[in-house]
């Protein structure tokens, strides 16, 4: 088990202030970066093996490298703080308790790609978190850690907080840019990719909060230190959000050697009430559910793909044996139907049809042929939309159909939902 670094001081009263953050080493990574050529900073991030923590796991240094070096106009860094993937609450902790680490990461990213402005796009519901960030920015500017001539260098950098207003889709990078430009959060057709044509048509890097929070550590402690944590290709400290039927839900920092079993039964204290595990969603609602037999796989990008799912945003949602998997799929598809931005027909219409079929089965009115219909609708959404939302919304359906088909069949056979969990409505 590695010592926490991202969340080492999050329980310390006043730990979010500049004074406390500097005491814990804040802005040392930025200081080191400013003494380097921007290209060397990108090289260091590449060497660390840091992969994006927002869901896709794309190598961060490579993403930064796509930004054209010789473009004459402005460039931008956007920090994706929309954190809306069901089950995910890790960026919330970083921004509220370690805001200077996030700001430092944004500033280093700006320096590396040649941007002078960074925007933190935060979901509208996080008003109290936005206030923490705003005051951290004011503190950092007053101390010369942001603003003009940062830390005595010739580098100028401003960071602004931009609040969303309730839209899951704004967490998709091109929709985030649309929202930041004052429009509906709907995705853009790619290519061109944001690294070339992004915010206001300028080259833009979009990184998740946790990704950017790791960047100062890479600079301050060195890429070798970072790459030594966790398995090969899955390096660095990782935040895991464990929720659902566990004794101690919360955010846990660990390496990606950690298995789902260790997260559920070690860190989170096991299944509440000593019940049996039925299913676990390893990376937020957009990743397929796994059966108990799969929990000895490491919770890493590659480990979860091998297990038949994805690490996603590392949001581990745990369900005990009282949970109805048809109901769980219905709950999540309800979410996607509500959040579909409506731009692509397969996603907009398909989410509605999947929900109707799931509700019908859960009510006990389903027929066996509905299972095939449900799967067919799902397969006609995946891969047929402008953004990954389409693939995401079919994960709860295809995952439960693959591992828990017998529960769907039991609903149809018995003409009712066979589960009677006390925590549900009317049970």
């Amino acid at each position, binding site marked *: 088990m590695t010592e926490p670094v991202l969340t080492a001081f*999050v*329980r*310390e*009263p*006043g730990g979010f202030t500049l004074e406390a953050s500097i005491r814990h080493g804040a802005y040392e990574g930025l200081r080191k970066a400013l003494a380097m050529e921007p290209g060397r900073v990108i090289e260091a991030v590449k060497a660390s093996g840091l992969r994006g923590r927002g869901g896709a796991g794309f190598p961060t240094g490579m993403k930064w490298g796509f930004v054209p070096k010789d473009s004459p106009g402005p460039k931008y860094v956007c920090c994706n703080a929309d*954190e*809306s*993937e*069901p*089950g*995910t*609450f890790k960026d*919330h*902790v970083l921004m*509220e*308790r370690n805001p200077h680490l996030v700001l430092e990461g944004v500033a280093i990213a700006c320096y590396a790609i040649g941007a002078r402005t960074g*925007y933190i796009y935060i979901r*509208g*519901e996080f*008003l*109290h978190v936005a206030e923490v960030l705003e005051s951290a920015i004011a503190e950092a500017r007053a101390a010369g850690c942001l603003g003009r001539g940062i830390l005595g260098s010739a580098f100028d950098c*401003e960071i602004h907080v*931009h*609040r*969303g*207003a*309730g*839209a899951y889709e704004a967490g998709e990078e091109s929709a985030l840019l649309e*929202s*930041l*430009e*004052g*429009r*509906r*959060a709907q995705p853009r057709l790619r290519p061109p990719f944001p690294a070339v044509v992004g915010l*206001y048509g300028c080259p833009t890097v979009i990184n998740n909060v946790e990704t950017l929070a790791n960047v100062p550590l890479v600079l301050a402690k060195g890429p070798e230190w970072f790459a030594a944590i966790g398995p090969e290709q899955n390096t660095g400290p990782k935040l895991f*959000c*464990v*929720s*659902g*039927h566990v004794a101690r*839900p919360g*955010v846990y920092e660990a390496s990606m050697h950690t298995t789902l079993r260790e997260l559920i039964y070690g860190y989170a204290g096991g299944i509440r009430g000593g019940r049996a595990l039925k299913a676990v*969603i390893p990376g937020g*609602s957009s990743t397929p559910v796994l059966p108990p037999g799969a929990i000895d796989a490491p919770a890493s990008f590659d480990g979860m793909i091998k297990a038949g799912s994805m690490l996603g945003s590392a*949001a581990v*949602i745990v*369900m005990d044996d009282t*949970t109805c998997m048809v109901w769980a799929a219905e*709950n*999540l598809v*309800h*979410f996607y139907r*509500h*959040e579909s*931005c409506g731009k692509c027909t397969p996603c907009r219409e398909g989410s509605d049809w999947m929900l109707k079929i799931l509700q019908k089965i859960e009510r006990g009115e389903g027929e066996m042929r509905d299972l095939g219909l449900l799967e067919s609708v799902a397969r006609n959404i995946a891969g047929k939309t402008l953004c990954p939302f389409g693939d995401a919304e079919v994960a709860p359906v295809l995952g439960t159909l693959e591992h828990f088909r017998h529960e769907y069949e039991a609903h149809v056979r018995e003409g009712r939902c066979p589960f009677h969990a006390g*925590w*549900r*409505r*009317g049970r």
Partner: protein
Amino acid sequence: MSFHPKMSYGTGLHQSARERPDPGEPFAFTPERRARLEEIALRYPPDRRRSALLPALHLVQEQQGYVSARAMEHVAEVIGVTPAEVEDVVTYYTMFRSKPAGTYLLQVCRTLSCALNGAERVTDALARKLGIAPGETDATGMFTLVEVECLGACDRGPVVMVNDGWHECVTPEGAERLVDELREKGTAALSGCHLRVEKP
């Protein structure tokens, strides 16, 4: 006449269901809010003033409690876009309300992690206590109850957001108590976010 073999023309299904936004009272930003908006607009390039549209609408809702059609017209003028473009944005984002809500807007998270911890029962308890269904405002105009999707506090579920504040780890009994306490002492009744470890 109809070109459809089975459906006659103009009998409902062919009519647009678009709701006209509530026109509301005449609206203009207070001088303080207008000044705050101009300060926020400086964060974006001068020719990208439209980026200040979401912040402007947050300010409208802070002032008016919802976003009326007249407010949309005012925002359009201040930002330099058309009222239709403002309405396009307002109707997309769930946090912007097209109708006034009660003094306390109770927003129960209904998504999986909260639901696994009993969010359905919390909603039912609130509905019973207030004598309303989700989506409605009670007779006194004090409480509006809605179900919302994931609020990003899944380790403290079920979560109920009341106006801009959070109330965590809510049980059905706790939800009923919350209603009484909101009546007594307002938003001071809320638990707030557990990450705020400092004592106020």
